[in-house]
């Protein structure tokens, strides 16, 4: 091995330089971490204290579409039949395994009684909405930071900051997002966040006549959702994607993809 020929002064100079440059990123990150973290909204709502979720009992849904209708009214969703924050799908499974899924106008105007030639095996309704994933692909792909996850687990869209690139609409595996035809920004269910922070429940849960939808706080011991999760065998949509939805279905059929 060659002997390193270096003066003590030179050695110290180099040592100090290298140490400084190495510690620079660490110092910057620690500065970042010291930022204000405990967030309290107007009215004293602390998002960290909550973790919202929704439960849906498939066996109860009658497909009346009141949820989709109320959602449109509450959130000013365009009345055109292609824009929904929540909607109801009808599944018809025929003998032999063929499956038909339809959702005429999201179920707002009800469903017509299809007389199919083939013999029906089973049929049911599935209300759908944004799954408020704990691991949201839409937030990951947003190039501007216009969609984000709040501390209580709800994914919001900043419509003033959204550039309407539609990446999130492509990324959502549940088809829960759409582009607002007027503002050209992304839109989706946010559990009626403006109601949540004031202690109210989402409009769809409010009007559901059969209590198909259950809403609550997963952090609260006595919330309706905790009770729902204790009393039912539950599933989420597309669990293999590891999106970890916070919308839970009880009695979900294998055909619901």
């Amino acid at each position, binding site marked *: 091995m060659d002997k390193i020929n270096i003066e003590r002064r030179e050695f110290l100079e180099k040592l100090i330089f290298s140490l400084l440059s190495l510690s620079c990123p660490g110092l910057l990150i620690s500065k970042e971490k010291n930022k204000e973290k405990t967030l309290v909204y107007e009215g004293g709502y602390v998002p960290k204290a909550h973790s919202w979720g929704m439960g849906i009992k498939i066996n109860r849904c009658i497909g009346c579409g009141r949820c989709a209708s109320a959602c449109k009214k509450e959130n000013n969703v365009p009345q055109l039949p292609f824009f929904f924050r929540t909607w109801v799908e009808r599944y018809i499974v025929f003998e032999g395994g063929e499956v038909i899924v339809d959702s005429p106008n999201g179920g707002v105007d009800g469903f017509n009684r299809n007389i199919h030639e083939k013999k029906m095996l089973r049929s049911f309704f599935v209300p759908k909405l944004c799954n408020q994933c704990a691991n949201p692909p839409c937030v990951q792909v947003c190039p501007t930071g216009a969609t984000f996850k709040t501390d209580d687990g709800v994914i919001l869209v900043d419509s003033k900051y959204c550039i309407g690139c539609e990446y999130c609409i492509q990324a959502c595996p549940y088809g829960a997002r759409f582009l607002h035809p007027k503002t050209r920004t992304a839109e989706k269910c946010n559990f009626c966040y403006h109601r949540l922070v004031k202690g109210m429940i989402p409009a769809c849960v409010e*009007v559901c006549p059969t209590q198909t939808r259950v809403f609550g706080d997963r952090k609260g011991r006595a919330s309706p959702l905790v009770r729902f999760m204790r009393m039912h065998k539950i599933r989420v949509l597309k669990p293999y994607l590891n999106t970890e939805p916070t919308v839970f279905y009880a009695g979900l059929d294998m055909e619901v993809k």
Partner: protein
Amino acid sequence: MNRIKGIREKIPDQVKRLLIPVVLVIAAFVVMRHFLVPSDFGKYGHYRASAIDDVISLEIKYSGHMVCDDCHDDIVEVKKMSYHRDVACEACHGPAAAHTEDPDGNKLQAPRERGYCPLCHEYLPSRPTGFPQIVSESHNPRKACISCHDAHDPKTPEAPKECKACHAEIARTKALSHHIYVSCIRCHETPEEHKVRPRDYRPEKPIRRELCGECHAKNAPAAKAIPRVDMATHGERYVCWQCHYPHLPEVD
């Protein structure tokens, strides 16, 4: 310091010149970022902090089921014992926040037309078993639901009276006739779908004389009191109902 000077001298000229545009680009980026990125961006995370305020300041339109009790306690009292106890007022009457702010200025509508109740109660095979459903085509057609049912206290629904629900006039006539105990389907072969799509699936009228002959022929194995005819000679070229009206057959 001599060392640093030494390093600087070692850097080739072209690299030094390249450094100028690099510094300029970085400076331009920093300046642009300062103006383009909102000041509150990244305060709590990778988003605009005021975006949350924008969302939570949206107007609430559904005021919730608790508010109605304050004024409409009489209806709430009736409803809470009925089958509709878990149906929120706003499910039928629409968003009520504006109405609670100004009860006289913003009146709510009640759905009085026939199309609204079937959204929940029209028969659909997809609906859960046991949920009360009707087939509106045969369930007192053209009559408003609220003319028989109180939406705040709906009574146990009864199953639709098979043919009578639509063909009440014929049913009444037949009830006064000698044919009172002859059921409709004895003569009219009716596909099940007729109840659902009455015009697409029509019941049949008897086309064989022998159908009447099953009771009225000379040798028919039927009650003695039934009038008999000789099928061979009695109007042999016609089907019976071309001359007789089976819903109210002549007495003699």
